[in-house]
Each structure stands twice: as C-alpha cells, then as structure tokens.
C-alpha cells in the first residue's frame, strides 16, 4: 500500500499543472476505486495502478476538456473589466486635467495610477460580492469558484502594481511640492493597506493553502479595505485633499456579502422555494 500511496502522490504532482485541486481529488477517488478492483483480480500494485491510469485516458486530454469548460468568461468579470477600462479612461482625463503648471506632471500621473489601482481593488471586492450573490441564488459549480479565484488573483497583481506606482508618484510629488514625504497622511496609510491586502491575496492564492471560497472572502475584504483607503479619510475629514463621498455606501454591501459568504450555496433559492 505504501507503493500505491507513492504512485498516487507522484500522479497527483504530475496533474497539478493541468487540473484544479478538486478535479484532481475527484479523479484520484476514481483511480483508487478502480485500483482496488484490479488488486482483487490478483494484479500487483504497479500493474493495477498502470492499468487504472491507462483506462482513465490521457490526463492531458481530460484537462483540455476541463479547460474548455473554464474558458467561458463569467459575465461579472466582463463587466469588471469594462469598469476597469472606464477607470483607465477617467484616470487619463484626470491626468490631462491635472498636468498643468500649478499641479505638475507627477500629480496627474499619481491620480491616474491610483485611480486605476484602487478601481481594480474595488472591482475585486465587487466580483466577490457578485460571486456570493450568485452562489446564494443557485448552486454554483465549485470548479468555477476555482477559476474565478485565479482571475481575482490576476486582478490583484494589477491592482497592486498600479497602486504601488501611484504611491511612489505621490511621494515624489509631495517631496517636490511640500519638501517632505506625506508619510503620516491618512491616504498614504490607505494606499499601503491596499498594497498589503492585494499582495496578501496573491500570496494566499499562489500558496494553494487557501480554498477558492477563502480567496473570494479575501477579495470581498479587499473591497472594504479599498473603500477605507479611498474614502475613509474623507468620511472622517482627516488628511489632505478631501472630497466628499460616503465610505459606507461601498463598505456596507461588502460587509453584508462577507457575512452571506458563510451561508451554504443555494440557501436563498431554497428559502424561496420553501416559502412558496
């Protein structure tokens, strides 16, 4: 049996690049059951394992079929990308508007980068909210959750990079305009919190230690973090460059979605069916 565990572990490793964790677990259960039958037919462990893998068919072909299923784009993701493109255009317009002798090139570039970065982080949170809502209304296929978690990690890399560029540009501008860095500014803390959070999400995903639903919860929290980063300073009237926009409009739906994410899938649909 020790040999079988080694063979299965080796097979699992070879599949890791091709299939998701849940897909591997499902196929592994199939292989183990088939191997048990073959062992009862007097085959040795190695022969039974080889026969079960052969009968299962090419892992590459099966992974290709799974990939076809996953390659369809989730519609909220398309909407999220559209919003990000809109943020990019708005950021460019702000850059042009602010790149005058009074504010300078650096401030315009900072506003552009930070708008694009914060918007990406906010979209990550909204995608998490969309997932939780859809999952409440109907049983959401688990392999989709894994695919969506991977997309959220990609979005996080983008959000992290744009926010980091925005933060560096803000520091350069503050040094030039005020003669010192605005390290203790509330908005600076917000940007750093966004950086830490987005990097945390990517690390959690890459480590493989957090489940897809865990990554999605992480994403919802990213919406809350960025709403504090973007609008918190305004809501509490601390820091510089305040503009009015209520923080809670963004943070509250995210907090609600986070609470709902702990409910079982399809709970709202079942509740509605019971009520009818």
């Amino acid at each position, binding site marked *: 049996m020790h040999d079988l565990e080694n063979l299965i572990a080796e097979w699992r490793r070879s599949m890791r690049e091709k299939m998701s964790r*849940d*897909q591997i*677990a*499902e*196929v*592994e*259960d*199939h292989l*183990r*059951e*088939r191997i048990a039958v073959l062992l009862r037919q007097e085959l040795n462990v190695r022969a039974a394992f080889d026969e079960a893998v052969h*009968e*299962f*068919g*090419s*892992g590459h*072909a*099966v992974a290709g*079929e*799974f990939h*076809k*299923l996953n390659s369809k784009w989730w519609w909220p993701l398309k909407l999220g990308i559209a919003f990000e493109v809109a943020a990019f255009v708005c950021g460019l317009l702000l850059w042009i508007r602010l790149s005058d002798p009074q504010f300078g090139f650096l401030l315009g570039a900072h506003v552009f980068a930070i708008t694009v970065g914060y918007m990406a982080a906010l979209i990550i949170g909204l995608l998490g909210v969309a997932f939780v809502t859809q999952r409440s209304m*109907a*049983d959401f*296929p*688990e*392999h*989709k959750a894994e695919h969506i978690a991977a997309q959220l990690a990609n979005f996080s890399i983008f959000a992290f990079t744009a926010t980091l560029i925005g933060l560096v540009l803000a520091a350069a501008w503050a040094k030039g305009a005020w003669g010192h860095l605005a390290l203790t500014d509330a908005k600076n803390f917000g940007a750093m919190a966004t950086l830490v959070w987005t990097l945390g999400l990517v690390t959690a995903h890459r480590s493989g230690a957090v489940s897809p639903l865990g990554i999605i919860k992480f994403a919802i929290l990213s919406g809350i973090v960025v709403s504090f980063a973007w609008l918190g300073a305004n809501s509490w009237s601390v820091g510089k460059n305040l503009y009015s926009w209520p923080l809670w409009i963004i943070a509250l739906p995210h907090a609600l979605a986070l609470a709902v994410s702990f409910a079982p899938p399809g709970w709202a649909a079942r509740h509605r069916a019971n009520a009818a």
Partner: protein
Amino acid sequence: MKLDKELVAASSAPMVLAILAEGDSYGYAIIQRVRELSGGKIEWTDGMLYPVLHWLEEQGQIRGRWEKAGLARRRRYYALAPKGRTALREHRNQWETVTAALNQLWRPQHA
C-alpha cells in the same frame, strides 16, 4: 459490436441524467452502471465522463457535493436537479422519436 464515438458522445448526457434519476451517484459508479446497462457495449473512456459531469453541473442540470469516503478521501456525489429532470424528459422525447422512425424504416417490408 462497439458503438460509434459520435453516438456514444451524443448519448452521454441523457445516459448520465437517466442514471442520476435512479438516485445520487458518483463518477466511477456511473461508469459501471453504463457498462452494466449496455452489457459492456458502450465503452466510455473513464476520464471523459468527468468533463460531462462538470458541464451538466454548470448547466444547472445536476448538483455536485463532496462527501467523505473512508478516512482521508473525498468523493464527489451528483444528484439530478429540477432543470436536469426537464432536460431528461426532452432527451427522452428526442431519442424516442429517432428510434420510432428508425424502427419503422427497419421493419421487414422496408428491408
């Protein structure tokens, strides 16, 4: 006699739905049931069942859930969803139409 690949592919979704209409099941057991029902004439490559199951799940026709199987193993069970029951009725009507037409053509006077 082995069935054509195309026919096997076309019958895979109604076959899975019909098996799940008998009760919840999982991949390996579904394949065994297909072999048993066809007397071994329908030969599925084991691995090709799983993308079909996931596709049906994505369509909302079946529902998957994980259950413990032994000490450290997980097994994914599938159940027919209401949408799958409707799809199965539709499949059944279509297959019955095709077989009825072919049966008429293959009666002795047509042979």
